[in-house]
């Protein structure tokens, strides 16, 4: 296989929690939101990151984009470790990496007309003169399926789906290589979700984008991704091509996650579902051993003692479990 376009190596991010003294004293403890994440991103693919709330998938995406600083690890892009860059040096790489936000309502400036909103990234990166920029804006509006007259409208005049198209246009207008989609459809209703997903897939093919697609929705991720990484408590526990993963989930957490999706055609009484016991443990404490040992039906003392590493069980199918 060819070289990855983006390599994420041992990425860590923890958030400090302060006591009653606030920032005057040292933090009481840390929340380990991203805890040793590794993955590679290959050109032209869609890499899905799935996991339940609090598993660190959004934080992973934001840290890669430099929206919060990391606490260890590397993100290698074009031979450069992005995490070691100063904000000023990071700027030139921002052109290649864009984010599509989750909430289309709060991510568009209410005081700007759509035209000005879309032109801003072009001005920031000093692309073209005024006329060329305007042309590019109209072109991009067309690409994402909006009308030229929308150029002069304010964001509040649009529906959620249209707003997400604007958000998409804003991310695509400077021709990025990598687009991180942070739950881009979870704020939309189901019929609009399908429209936006199909648009995303069409654009990816046409513009040869590489995407990281972050979601908690199993059916969405299955529809759109080539490869999937399953996250649990800040770790990727299983990674495989989409078809392999759905055909043969190996990690006990992946199995439980998939079985949580109701399928009334195959199993009308929902008897074969494996329901996990307990809650996701707090990631405030330092977890020893396998992050999943608290809830795993197959856990043994060995799982508590030693953290499993990712092993390639089948070609391109990696699992972090001692008993697979």
């Amino acid at each position, binding site marked *: 296989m060819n070289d990855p376009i983006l390599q994420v190596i041992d990425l860590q991010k923890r958030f400090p929690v302060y006591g009653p003294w606030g920032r005057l004293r040292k933090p009481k403890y840390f929340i380990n939101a991203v805890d040793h994440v590794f993955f590679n991103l290959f050109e032209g693919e869609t890499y899905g990151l799935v996991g339940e709330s609090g598993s660190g998938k959004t934080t992973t995406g934001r840290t890669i984009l430099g929206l919060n600083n990391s606490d260890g690890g590397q993100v290698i892009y074009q031979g450069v470790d992005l995490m070691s860059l100063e904000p000023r040096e990071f700027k030139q790489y921002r052109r290649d990496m*864009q984010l599509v*936000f989750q*909430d289309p309502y709060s991510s568009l*400036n209410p005081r700007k007309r759509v035209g000005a909103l879309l032109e*801003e990234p072009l001005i920031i*990166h000093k692309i073209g003169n005024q006329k060329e920029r305007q042309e590019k804006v109209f072109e991009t509006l*067309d690409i994402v399926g909006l009308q030229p007259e929308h150029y002069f409208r304010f964001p509040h005049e649009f529906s959620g789906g249209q707003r997400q198209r604007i958000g998409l246009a804003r991310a695509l207008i400077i021709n990025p290589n990598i687009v991180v989609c942070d739950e881009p459809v979870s704020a939309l209703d189901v019929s609009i979700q399908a429209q936006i997903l199909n648009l995303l897939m069409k654009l990816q093919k046409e513009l040869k984008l590489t995407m990281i697609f972050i979601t908690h929705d199993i059916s969405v991720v299955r529809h759109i991704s080539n490869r999937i990484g399953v996250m649990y408590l800040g770790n990727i526990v299983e990674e495989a091509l989409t078809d392999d993963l759905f055909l043969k989930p190996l990690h006990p957490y992946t199995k439980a996650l998939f079985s949580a999706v109701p399928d009334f055609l195959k199993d009308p009484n929902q008897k074969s579902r494996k329901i996990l016991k307990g809650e996701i443990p707090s990631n405030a404490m330092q977890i020893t051993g396998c992050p999943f040992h608290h809830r795993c039906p197959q856990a043994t003392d060995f799982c508590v003692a030693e953290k499993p590493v990712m092993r390639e069980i089948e070609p391109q199918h990696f699992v972090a479990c001692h008993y697979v």
Partner: protein
Amino acid sequence: METIKQKENINEIRNRLLNQQRKLQRRKILSNRSLLIGALILLAMVLIAVLAPFIAPYSPSDMNVPNRLMPPSAQHLLGTDEFGRDLLTRVMYGARVSMFVGLAVSILSSVFGLIIGLYASYFKTLDHILMRISDGLIAIPGILLAIALMAALGGSIWNVVIALTVVFTPSIARVVRSSAVVIREQAYIEAVYMQGAGHFRILWGNIAPNVLSPLLIQATFIFASAILSEAALSFLGAGIPAPEPSWGNILQASKLVINKAWWVAVFPGVMLILSVLSLNLLGDGLRDYFDPHISARNK
């Protein structure tokens, strides 16, 4: 190409949309009664102030001692003061002082308040320094601070403007900072940061337009407060020096003759009340105008 064909009528579309938006705005303004009344009274005040040299029947310094303390009559519509000067003329010229001080103070303190508030909201260390200074200034009663500054600077109209700007800037800075802190955390600010925008673009291009409406509302109230404070300063003898008419020093002079000549006290007082009332109405109207919840309810 299709986009080129679309571009031909893009101006047409643009004009149609802008007209539509303008029409909506006009309807919104016309249905807002306090905004309308406030603006009308204020407009009248400003017109009086601007046109005073042309419409005033006498000169403000013309003394006519035999006619001193005349009650309102056809010759002197609002009567005369203790030196026989025409009160209508003096009240009109007083409006000049009040409107100038109010406008200058609200503009200057808005500009400084906007700069201070924006930078304080964005840079942590600067925030602590600037906000402690402004807390200190707010802690001193405004009128006392203004009197102290006037005592140091000496009485003149520009010094009144400077003193009142110092008094009112901290409260504007507070308002701007508190809205800017909220807006800084919005996802759309994060979006422009993610695209690689610098501090200047984020602050002035994206945060500032969103704090303008609370700023404008606050500025109209500052306008009213500045008019009142100027009158108070002049009344106390720390503002505009005597021969030049201002509502404050007319009121001060009226104090000695109030038993014989009520009109000298009443008319500048009424003007003061009207101008402050109009500004407060205007401010309330603007608040309704900018508040999306209220306008939705009215529809």
